[in-house]
């Protein structure tokens, strides 16, 4: 059997719809993350400055909001994608009872793990990709934060704060 994506999915299952949903989900999640973070970030940046006509200067003693608070729920889209992957795994198992009982064939194969391999591989990959993408977006946003916020306004220990709640925010 040709080892394309279908090799890791239930035999005969139409994957196009799942691929489309996953791709759209990832694109929308990325856009949503940047948009939400961008709005929060620019609002907080504004509060660091006072303006006098075209001139603007940092307000003495003004401190930037912590990155983790700004980033907040920006990656919620990826959490939705993650949940959809769990649903996809359930659907892959259920597929073996639609129209026929191909579950009987899968359960009596000499290779014991074939059923689980075909039902779980793609959803698990999707989950991992969503987590990696969320982390990559966090890094990009943190890069903006570090690069654009005046150094004197950054509260120390930002990275440590990220590490402390990393699992929650991605």
């Amino acid at each position: 059997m040709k080892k394309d994506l279908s090799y890791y999915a239930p035999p005969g299952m139409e994957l196009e719809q799942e691929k489309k949903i996953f791709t759209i989900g990832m694109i929308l999640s990325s856009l949503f993350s940047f948009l939400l973070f961008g709005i929060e970030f620019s609002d907080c940046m504004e509060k660091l400055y006072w303006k006098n006509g075209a001139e603007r200067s940092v307000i003495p003693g003004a401190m930037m909001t912590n990155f983790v608070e700004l980033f907040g729920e920006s990656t919620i889209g990826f959490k939705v994608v993650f949940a959809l992957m769990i649903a996809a795994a359930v659907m892959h198992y259920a597929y073996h009872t639609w129209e026929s009982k191909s579950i009987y064939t899968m359960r009596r194969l000499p290779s014991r793990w074939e059923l689980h391999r075909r039902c779980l591989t793609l959803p698990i990959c999707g989950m991992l990709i969503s987590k990696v993408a969320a982390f990559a977006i966090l890094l990009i946003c943190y890069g903006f934060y570090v690069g654009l916020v005046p150094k004197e306004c950054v509260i120390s220990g930002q990275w440590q704060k990220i590490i402390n709640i990393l699992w929650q925010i991605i």
Partner: protein
Amino acid sequence: MLELHNVSKSYTGKKALQNINLQIPQGEIIGLFGENSAGKTTMMKCILGLLRYSGKITLDGEPITHKNIARISFATCEHSFFPGLSPKGHKEFYGEHFPKFSEKRFDSLMKFFELPMNKSLSSFSTGQKNQFEVILALSQGADYILMDEPFAGNDIFNREDFYKVLLGILEPNETVFLSTHLIEEVADFIGRAILIHKGEIIGDVSVMDLEEEGKDLVSYIKETYHYRSDRVSKALEELTGEE
């Protein structure tokens, strides 16, 4: 030899199989007969490990596990193929998973039944689906071929064709364990009949022995089940009031 020792199975308190003891040697065609919900399907599913049961089922003395399960194939009226996959896809899948899968037999049977190779199974008629289900079971390269009412929905011509093919292609080591209600149709080519009633084996007979006693299979089955041929006429009398 496929052996069942004291096999019992219950569904939420209701006994589906009760202390079944059975020996099925290689190279026989065996008919399994019984009324609906007698336990025929349950017995086959227990053999395949699709249901949990108490007792012991062995294949040449070994428990049936993933190591020897390829020696048993299964054709069911519920169908066990992948509806979204074409016969060509099934051929590749079975070839990959069953070491003794016979491409030659698969191709010959596909040709004989004139089934399309590249269409998905979901586009097949019920009769074609049944034929394909049987083709897969016969081509898997199994020593024991379990068939659970595989012809439900097929017309008589189709079934007769199948019986001829079956008799023509079976190797001496291949055993067919066939559950069906079509007793008259299979009576001529089965070698042994097993009768099951309410989860218990109530008859196990060689067709040759029956013939020697001057009995035919249908009469034997009716006799064993205590079939009362006068019950229809009595019911009609009661309904119509006529004698």
